[in-house]
């Protein structure tokens, strides 16, 4: 089967790649496009390490076929910082040490940004449920949840 030619928008820029029909968006991002910030954890939609935004919707890229991205917009962790300036969530995760090994962190950050983009004042319960699909085996979650809550508070303060 010939590879399919896909044209899509990744982190605001037009991108093209060739992929087999059964390749996942995760495989394509890492192996064809060279964006290895998106991590492969379980490859079954349970761990959230491969979280990306697809047409503005948070998804596991391991559960999307690469061919499905044709004509869509994809946002990955590589698009989160503004040049050298980290996104407030990234900055807060560093300041509050909300990561240890870091493997889950790109997915957590993409998912947390998706939450704050629709809800700038989430409760702790809302943050915990929103991030229930992002597994972290190091932190015990408390530092992650606190960093997200503190970022939300900072962003509200900055816009007040």
């Amino acid at each position, binding site marked *: *089967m010939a590879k*399919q030619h896909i044209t899509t928008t990744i982190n605001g820029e037009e991108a093209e790649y060739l992929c*087999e*029909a*059964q390749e*996942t968006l995760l495989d394509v991002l890492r192996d064809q496009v060279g964006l290895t910030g998106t991590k492969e954890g379980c*490859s*079954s*939609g*349970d761990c*959230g390490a491969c*979280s990306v935004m*697809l047409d503005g*919707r*948070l*998804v*596991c890229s*391991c*559960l*999307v*076929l690469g*061919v*499905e991205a*044709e004509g869509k917009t994809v946002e990955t962790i590589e698009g989160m910082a503004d040049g050298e300036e980290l996104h407030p969530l990234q900055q807060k995760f560093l300041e509050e040490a909300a990561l240890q090994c870091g493997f889950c962190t790109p997915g957590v950050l993409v*998912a947390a940004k*998706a*939450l704050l983009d629709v809800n700038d004042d989430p409760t702790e319960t809302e943050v915990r*449920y*929103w*991030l*229930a*699909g*992002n597994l972290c085996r190091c932190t015990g979650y408390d530092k992650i949840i606190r960093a997200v809550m503190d970022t939300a508070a900072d962003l509200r303060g900055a816009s007040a």
Partner: protein
Amino acid sequence: MSGMRYEAPGSVDEAVTLLADEKGVARVLAGGTDLLVQMRAGMISPDLVVDIKKIAETKGITANGGGFSIGASVSGAEMGEHAELTAAWPGVVEGAELIGSTQVQGRATMAGNLCNASPAADSVPALIAAGATCTVAGPNGQREVPVEDIPTGPGKTSLGNGEFVVDIKLPARPAHAGDAYLRMIPRTEMDIAIVGAGVNLVLDDSGTCTEACVVLGAVGPTTITVADAAAALVGSKVDEAALAAVSAAASAAASPINDKRGTVEYRTKVAGVLASRAAAIAADRARSK
């Protein structure tokens, strides 16, 4: 999995032709949250995947005549964001929204949940209790089918060669109608139901129940519609005595398996507890309308 072909047709007829003409294994792709997992696990190796998300009839939630049509490509997240649907059918929406994580919610569809035919499918009991139907398209045209007729056993459906579900239809609501879905999982989130209970009911102006349907999930090879529980609700004010009868009827109807996630005894007991609690929630919702 090598040599798989992918097609994303723009019409129902094209999709039916692709599915019907495939000599090998064909699978329908909507949200992909079951299909891609099964492919990855080596459970299936499709020769053809037909993505139905570019077909207009599978998109969006349409209100018509007081009821709703929910396209087969509509994700749980889209359902939760639809204020009218959530107001009219909170139980159906909460069932769909219990499936998986935020990430899975962005993709997973009710039609996919129905056609995956897991006995523990979270969106199905409330859909059956609601009296939902689905549009099945196939080589002989389209037919309307009650949703409970689609799953026939674990992983098996009544869909014939070339057939797929285009949309799911919820009927119009009378006054004082309410529904609810509850499930039991061993964890707080991200788990598969060991018992699910969907209840839909209608009250008259005096608060007496005139119609009811109680459906259990995950305690049999398919869902179980508990007629005795519905009979206990109809004619009652959905009071404690009626709820106790619902609980007893649901436990009596449950026919669960024993596994590491829950024993027969526990699932049987919890089936009664969840059915009566869901009935109480549905009645509260009905009284407030």
